[in-house]
């Protein structure tokens, strides 16, 4: 802390380049959304951003993203647990496979899942026997978002679980705690922060996801239309105002949710440290 700037050279140069690149690629382009909105009348904006069809699309996007992220919390923790704590054949392959949704282009995932869950698909035909529909429903959208979000929770929980001191668990066991008590009182609190991180990453990704969802959703207005798709179709009709109005609402809601989740995470961290 003695000297504010270290003897290592390059501060001005690297900071300059970083800020310039950040401005050109992110900040200036992003500001266009706000400028465009400022150009619109209030009435016009509300009509474009909050009409019935658009409201329904927000609903589908946020609800399916929330459901998918929640499913991923459960399976993410389970996968991380199984990989870190147990030994079994093909464990390495299973561990490596978890990142597949990151590496696979979303449109490939999209058409594969749509075919799989359509009425004649391998899974879809089984579902229809049970009277359920996979593709072209909100359920289908959620499946696609679960697929996209698998790695997020697992990869945030895994390193924390690896570093967890097993001594505490053993001590609690000696003191007569049951397995479920240990999980609830010793392990889970440690995992809360990475779970929240994984959840918010998966959620943010799910709300904005387009490629894997357009195919499986069927895009029926007031039913399975998602907000990013509405932006896309407005753009195709050269309705830039309409597209911008929806975009800004999505941006603001995502930012607010991320802020809340960040605060929540900071709180749990603080609480644990005290």
């Amino acid at each position, binding site marked *: 802390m003695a000297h*504010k*700037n*270290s*003897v*290592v*050279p*390059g*501060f001005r*140069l*690297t*900071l300059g380049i*970083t800020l310039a*690149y*950040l401005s050109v*690629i992110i*900040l200036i*382009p*992003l500001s*266009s*959304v706000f*400028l465009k909105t400022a150009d619109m009348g209030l009435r016009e904006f509300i009509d474009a951003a909050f009409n019935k069809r658009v409201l329904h699309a927000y609903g589908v996007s946020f609800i399916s993203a929330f459901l998918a992220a929640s499913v991923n919390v459960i399976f993410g923790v*389970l*996968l991380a*647990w199984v990989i870190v704590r*147990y030994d079994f054949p093909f464990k390495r392959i*299973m*561990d490596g*496979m978890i990142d597949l*949704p990151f*590496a*696979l*282009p*979303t*449109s*490939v995932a999209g*058409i*594969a899942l749509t075919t*799989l869950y359509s009425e004649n698909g*391998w899974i879809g035909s089984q579902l229809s026997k049970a009277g359920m529909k996979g593709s072209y429903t909100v359920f289908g959208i959620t499946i696609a978002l*679960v*697929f996209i979000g*698998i790695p997020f929770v697992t990869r945030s929980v895994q390193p924390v679980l690896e570093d967890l001191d097993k001594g505490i668990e*053993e001590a609690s*066991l000696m003191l007569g705690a049951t*397995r479920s008590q240990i999980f609830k009182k010793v392990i889970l609190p440690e995992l809360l922060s990475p779970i929240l991180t994984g959840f918010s*990453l998966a959620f*943010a990704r799910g709300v*904005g996801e*387009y*490629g894997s969802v357009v*195919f499986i959703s069927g895009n029926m207005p007031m039913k399975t239309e998602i907000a*990013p798709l509405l*932006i896309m179709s407005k*753009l195709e009709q050269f309705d*830039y105002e309409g*597209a*911008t109005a929806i*975009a800004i609402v999505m*941006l603001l809601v*995502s930012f607010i949710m991320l802020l809340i989740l960040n605060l929540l995470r900071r709180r749990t961290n603080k609480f644990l440290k005290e």
Partner: protein
Amino acid sequence: MKKHKSHGGEPKGIKIILIGISVLFLVTMLILPLALIITQALGKGVRAYIEAITDHYTLKALQLTLLATITAVAANTLFGITAAWCITKFKFKGKQFLITLIDLPFSISPVIAGLIFVLIFGRNGLFYGLLEQFDVKIVFALPGIILATIFVTFPFVARELIPLMEAQGTDEEAAAASMGAGGFTIFWRITLPNIKWGLLYGIILCTARAMGEFGAVSVVSGHIRGKTNTLPLHIEILYSEYQFSAAFAVSSCLVMIAVIILILRNLVEWKAKKSR
């Protein structure tokens, strides 16, 4: 003494059930889609498969995807190193805020990422007049595709390097600097060998995302066949024209690339752990 046995883990039954559920989950969610792609791709025979993947438009799309990916990854790698150097080697105000800004693209929908470039460079856009004068096309052309890809993959390399370089501190660099080494020499001789695996890891993730980007590129591409169509967009077109086996044939190539990326990723991670 019975307790001693179950010391390290749960009862065997629970263990088997948990592993079983995990395997079942991964098989339904990951393996079935992959198996489906392969069977559908070969559904019309090997000849149709080869025809689909050597089709003129497929090869053109592959070319474009590679070009956009290489440019975007190179730009973001240079930026990632620069930003990580600036953030981890110096103390300054607003550092946390800068990191938040770098992470921003992760929380922005790819469709919105495409939209902002259309708003700036498209018709009625801020710079449209200027571009018109010089007859430069950005949106619905290659520059737009590259810009959108850069935006979406912006944080990957920086995000991988910042925690790594933070943990390594600045002692070695400071020592070299006090002995008179220049900035570039310090980076090349000291920092780079220390961060090479992390850097490679970031580059792999960045490449994977850049190759597969769909939403953002879809907005700015204009879908001109043979010209502004990337591989993921080409798959969409084939699929919507009901050329299912062709769509899955092209998909299967991307699956292969994805698997190679995964193997590389694991190799690099393993190397990084070993070198520590």
